[in-house]
């Protein structure tokens, strides 16, 4: 069984890394020659070639990082608010929890399509609403405009994954002991103070886990970018870049090199997190 897992996950990864050192093309993937690091960076005829010399790649890296930072921050704040609301006892809580969960269950592609329609430049409901409220004077082409396209992608992601964030934070909230709050209430501490002085420090571990999970997920974003703006360079993510080289341009070598870089970035984040977690555990153990 473990062999299956290794085969299913490990083997393709190993092959991808191997391809990144070859000149394989999609049509003749079997016959390829070893080319060393040429796909990453090469000096040929007076110019630099390879993924690392491609401005579009760096643009996609920047896009992905920006997307991850912005969307995960918004999701954390919104998720926290929703989790605090869900932590209260009120009639209809079960139903409310189910409602909150719905966006999470809708396939990403479909939620991207729904938002795509709502953000439509001429007939979209978002423009209509904003114009009725007098916030904008003329309709905005959300997904076509370079300034707003990335926000559209962030919007879709926030809508879809905030529930996940809220649930993870809620699980952390529910593990907190009640007597602490009882004591704070008796002492007449202001609720806002309670939140920042008691709740936030106590759920920090759960919060960190949620943030890390979401960030790793956001770094490999593909679906909503592909559907909302296809391959526009303003919003291209690392995953979209790699797939474009691989499938559209048929360049398995270059695409694999980009994919390997994506993998390395995410692996690096995982390793750093694990080391940090272990260090903190070590500290806690010494005390």
């Amino acid at each position, binding site marked *: *069984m473990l062999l299956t897992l290794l085969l299913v996950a490990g083997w393709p990864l190993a092959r991808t890394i191997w391809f990144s050192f070859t000149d394989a093309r999609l049509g003749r993937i079997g016959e390829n020659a070893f080319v060393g690091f040429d796909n990453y960076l090469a000096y040929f005829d007076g110019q630099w070639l390879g993924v690392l010399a491609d401005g579009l790649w760096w643009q996609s890296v920047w896009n992905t990082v920006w997307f991850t930072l912005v969307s995960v921050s918004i999701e954390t704040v919104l998720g926290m608010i929703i989790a605090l609301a869900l932590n209260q006892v009120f009639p209809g809580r079960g139903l409310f929890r189910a409602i909150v969960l719905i966006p999470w269950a809708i396939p990403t592609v479909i939620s991207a399509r729904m938002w795509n329609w709502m953000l439509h430049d001429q*007939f979209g409901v978002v423009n209509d609403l904003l114009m009725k409220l007098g916030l904008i004077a003329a309709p905005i082409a959300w997904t076509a405009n370079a300034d707003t396209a990335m926000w559209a992608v962030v919007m879709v992601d926030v809508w879809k994954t905030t529930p996940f964030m809220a649930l993870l934070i809620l699980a952390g909230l529910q593990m907190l002991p009640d007597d602490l709050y009882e004591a704070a209430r008796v002492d007449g501490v202001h609720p806002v103070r309670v939140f920042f002085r008691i709740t936030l420090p106590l759920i920090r571990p759960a919060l960190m*886990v949620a943030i890390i999970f979401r960030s790793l997920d956001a770094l490999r974003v593909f679906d909503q970018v592909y559907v909302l703006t296809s391959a526009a360079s303003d919003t291209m993510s690392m995953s979209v870049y790699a797939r474009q080289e691989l499938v559209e341009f048929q360049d398995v070598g270059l695409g694999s090199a980009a994919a390997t870089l994506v993998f390395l970035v995410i692996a690096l984040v995982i390793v750093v997190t694990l080391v940090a977690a272990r260090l903190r555990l070590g500290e806690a153990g010494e005390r």
Partner: protein
Amino acid sequence: MRWRRRLGRIGFWLLIAAITVFALFPFYYAVISSFRAGSDLFTVAYWPEAFDPSNYAAVFQRQPFGRNIANSIAVAAAVVTLSLVLSLTAAYSLGRVRFRGRTTLLFTILSVSMFPQVAVLSGLFELIRVFGLYNSLPGLVLANLILTLPFTVWVLTTFMRELPKELEEAAIVDGAGPWTLVWRVFLPLMGPAVVTTGLLAFIVAWNEFLFALTFTLSDEKRTVPVAIALMSGASAYELPWGNIMAASVVVTLPVVVLVLVFQRRIVSGLTAGAVKG
């Protein structure tokens, strides 16, 4: 003091209402749009005024959408079954049998679930070509297993660890082998956990896009997300929005029902996968 509390109550309910609207509006708007056909669609409406099912008819006539749904169901069902069978066996060995490097192995499995999908794309592409599974449903099942197996193994292992050891010992004394143990003793006890994990695996397989987009070629082999993403009209600027919304509603409805019915289990499964780790 009293009016302040009342104000707080009102504020709280306003917050709940705002979150509900935020969560439901896109879906609601897709539903009302899907029932508006022709030029109707090009005026913004907030309330369900029209009830024209022609978009729904068009979706099924203009492309093999019924076939796409059947594909999605077949792939998701196969993925759920395979990953449950495989991960139950794995969870037994990981949760019960002690061996060296068990924790490392568990963490490796967890990190596999954090893999970026593109990283395995070209390797998997070759594998699928070699097996002759390109543009076929079994190929998609194989690809999706990469996504589901790590977390089904992880969640089932955490559940397995919580079961009392005495039960297992009693069964072994009674002469049960490992196979009987897993299928006769653990499976009935883990029923709820298995349902939860199965549901999560189903949702993942149902939503999967990148593999399905890359490993299929013809309309008849596509799964629903790919079919909806590639739906286009006469030109790139003339997307058939009514049809797209109708298709989206058809596909989303079962998932929404699943969530409403099983929300408690989904929540427990999601948090077990993340927090207990």
